[in-house]
């Protein structure tokens, strides 16, 4: 065998490998995408930490999105790098409000969204958000009618530059003011948004579940639409 490679060289190589992998990829990478290319027993968290520090003041930063990592251009350069031409179609007010209600109240059902907005949500609004990849169907609530629950995605975090859902702007104040409860009275315990695993009152979706919601379809038919 060859003489043993010094520890620091292994470190350097691991860092370079991570750098290359993360630079080459468009989407954030998870541990499972990176581990296979590192030396055995590599401390991924520590390596990512080192890389994050190395790029802290650079023009690109290593950012965390959920449990994944990606290189993104530095936030403070945003005014310089702003590209207005890319936004295909600005979100409608209804879609934007629905998105923020889902983000702050998740897991949330369609009728809960409607309760906050005071108006029926057209199916089209949710479709737009799901097509953008920002909203997903999480499961079904264990209540009569078994309504679909909605939540945000990793792409949502990535698009809006959030490390985790608890970094949503103003989340703390909203919670403090009791404004994140979907049901009354407000002085009861206030839920905090969860975009991860299913909560105890959610059932997983069946693979062939198209998300049709019998109950809210019926309800929607009796309300004015927002389209």
């Amino acid at each position, binding site marked *: 065998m060859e003489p043993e490679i010094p520890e620091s060289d292994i470190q350097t190589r691991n860092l370079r490998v991570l750098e290359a992998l993360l*630079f080459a990829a468009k989407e954030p990478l998870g541990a499972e995408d990176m581990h296979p290319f590192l030396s055995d027993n590599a401390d991924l968290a520590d390596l990512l930490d080192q890389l994050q520090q190395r790029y802290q003041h650079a023009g690109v930063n290593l950012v965390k999105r959920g449990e994944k990592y990606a290189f993104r251009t530095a936030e403070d350069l945003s005014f310089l790098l702003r590209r207005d031409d890319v936004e295909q179609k600005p979100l409608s007010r209804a879609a934007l409000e629905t998105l*923020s209600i889902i983000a702050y109240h998740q897991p949330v059902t369609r009728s809960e969204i409607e309760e*906050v*907005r005071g*108006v029926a949500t057209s199916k089209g609004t949710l479709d737009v958000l799901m097509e953008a990849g920002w909203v997903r169907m999480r499961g079904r609530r264990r209540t009569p009618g078994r309504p679909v629950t909605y939540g945000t995605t990793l792409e949502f975090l990535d698009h*809006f530059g959030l490390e985790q859902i608890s970094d949503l702007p103003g989340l703390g104040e909203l919670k403090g*003011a009791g404004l994140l409860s979907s049901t009354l*009275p407000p002085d009861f315990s206030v839920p905090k948004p969860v975009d991860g695993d299913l909560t105890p009152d959610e059932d997983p979706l069946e693979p062939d579940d198209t998300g049709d919601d019998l109950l809210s379809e019926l309800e929607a038919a009796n309300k*004015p639409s927002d389209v």
Partner: protein
Amino acid sequence: MLTLRFFLRHDLFKQPNKANQMPFQDNDFTQQPEPPRQGVMYVDVKGYEGPLDLLLDLARKQKVDLAHISVLSLAEQYLGFIETLKERRIEVAADYLVMAAWLAYLKSRLMVPHDDEDEEPSGEEMAALLQFRLKRLEAMRDAAGKLVNRPRLGREIHMRGDPETIVTTKTKQWQATYYDLLRAYVIQREKALPKDYSVKVRTVWSLSEAEEILERLIGQSAEWVPLQSYLAEYLTSGEERQTALASSFTASLEMVRQGHIELRQSAPFSPLMVRRKRQSEGS
């Protein structure tokens, strides 16, 4: 579905987000000088997304802080607004009328002192509920505004513009088990064997042979005779004993079934007696 369209003076509704405005009066509609024809515009439901949206707009015009709005005067404003629409023969969606009914009820509850025996929620509770809903809607609107104004990916923040493609080479990995291998060999070797090789002959009485022998030995004997005594000559050689016994016993059963002979055994393990069946008894 109902299409909700208002004919409204657009200057009234143009700045729904501007909080610092004159307190909104329900007679504003009539008191303002009627502008010329072009001042009247066609406002569809996109101007207001339902009654809650309209209420929130009215509330904002009342006070900056939703915590201190007068729900009573808010209710009055809303009801006045709906009334005005009706007077102008504008079609109002059911939702708005439901809210109007609820607010009228709220108004009455607020003006009547609360009775402790009453099961219904008090006017104050109903007002708090409305206030909560308005605050929550406003909070979600603010949040949406903050969210959408964050530096966003693809606009202010960028991902790698020219991600390097990953080339995947597919390699086939052939699978076979050791057993498959040996089976494959053996099957071919056996298939290749010459077909005319002879099998070593074993001493076995076939059933038809046994039946033939029994038929001959029993003959026309109508007496009960132990089966074994008929077979005595065959039972001496060890090699033939087993097959002679087994095959002749099985054959005898078959012959009974066919009605040629009769069998009798007086007790377990006692000699099996056999005789030719008499024809007269059979019929």
